């Protein structure tokens, strides 16, 4: 957004668009792919977090739990089948994220690069 500058937004305002209209019609379309890309990367990161989260979250079952932590809990309780199942699920989700990222780059890579002026 910084690289794209605010010229287009100024043009929209000078043509009489309200702040919201400017955001929805001009700003958002200009960085939608970069936004999606960022969300995807963030998601991948969130799925993989373990150590820091386990300390900060308090590790309370049923309340502040997440998949990586759950796998550890199951494993420590000797529920190997369950833990492997959840681990496979997590790995599958990681692949899906990776796949989406590749599709995004392949399909809209030019736009992503072009919107970076």
């Amino acid at each position, binding site marked *: 957004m910084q690289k794209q500058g605010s*010229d*287009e937004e*100024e*043009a*929209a*305002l*000078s*043509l*009489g*668009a*309200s702040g919201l*209209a400017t955001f929805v*019609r*001009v700003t958002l*379309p*200009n960085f939608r792919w970069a936004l999606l890309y960022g969300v995807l990367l963030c998601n991948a990161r969130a799925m993989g977090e373990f150590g820091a989260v386990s300390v900060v979250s308090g590790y309370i079952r049923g309340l502040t739990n997440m998949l990586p932590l759950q796998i550890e809990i199951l494993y420590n309780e000797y529920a190997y089948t369950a833990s492997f199942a959840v681990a496979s699920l997590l790995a599958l989700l990681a692949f899906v994220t990776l796949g989406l990222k590749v599709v995004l780059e392949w399909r809209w890579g030019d736009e992503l690069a*072009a*919107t970076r002026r």
Partner: protein
Amino acid sequence: MAPGELVALLGPSGSGKTTLLCLIADLDFPTSGQVLFGGEDTFRRHARERRVGFVFQHYALFRHMTVADNIAFGLRVKPRRERLPETVIKARVSELLSLVQLDGLARRYPAQLSGGQRQRVALARALAIAPRVLLLNEPFGALDARVRKELRRWLRGLHDRMGLTSLFVTHDQEEALKLADRIVVMNRGRIEQVGAPGEVYEHPASPLVCEFLGDVNRFDCVVAGGRASVLDSDFAAAVTGLADGPAVAYVRPHDIEIVTQRSTVGLPAIVRHVADAGPLVVVELGVQSIERPVEVMLARHEAAGLAMQRGLSVFLRARRVQLFLAPIH
């Protein structure tokens, strides 16, 4: 500004011209002072209500929209009550495309257009909202010389035909002189002079205006007894009301006469360089008492008549000068 005028804001970089333009367009806010439209203060009004069209230096077209959508933008973001039906909007867009001579390019994206075409789309987009005033910020700055000339002429024609009121910013004095009805010369945030191009060129109000508009030769001189001698020619300083003392004289290159024989007045000079620049011939001369070369412009036939060439000894006379107080250093 009067309705129907085409005014140029001219000045060196940093003089405040773009800031002034942005203040009028409500893209920037004044710390004091008012902008009055038809006598009304528009400070509290939204940009939409001012109905000011703005054309940016680098077009600022919406890159993800087609040309047609770009032009229709101003009409589509109007509040529901004021919004025209889609068919009317489409017709309007067609009209404007014809006006800017870009028919058939409605479905293109800005990235697929040339600089000149993009600027015309930007203009059509600004005109779509039927603005009261059209503001242009160095509209042709990013284009090459030939396209610039064509668009300049075309803009003037459009302005006259549509009866627009326009204000454009430029640092190109030639553009201002050729295009505008009135020129506002600015420097360091202040207005130095306002007037018609001829007026500002012939009677500059200050040394800066003189130096900025067109080429000029500068000579140091002294005013004594109400008169000053420049290039061995005598001029009355009483006209400009200058007191006796050191002064600065500005002489336009075409206000210097070259003669081969000294009659009553004439400063000896030697021709250093002759530049054949199309319709005009620019002659550079060296004068003994003056450090910088003196520049004189002659029409082709005059230069031919004098047989201008390097090394020739001639005499110089000034026809007209602008006298100002010498700056205090």
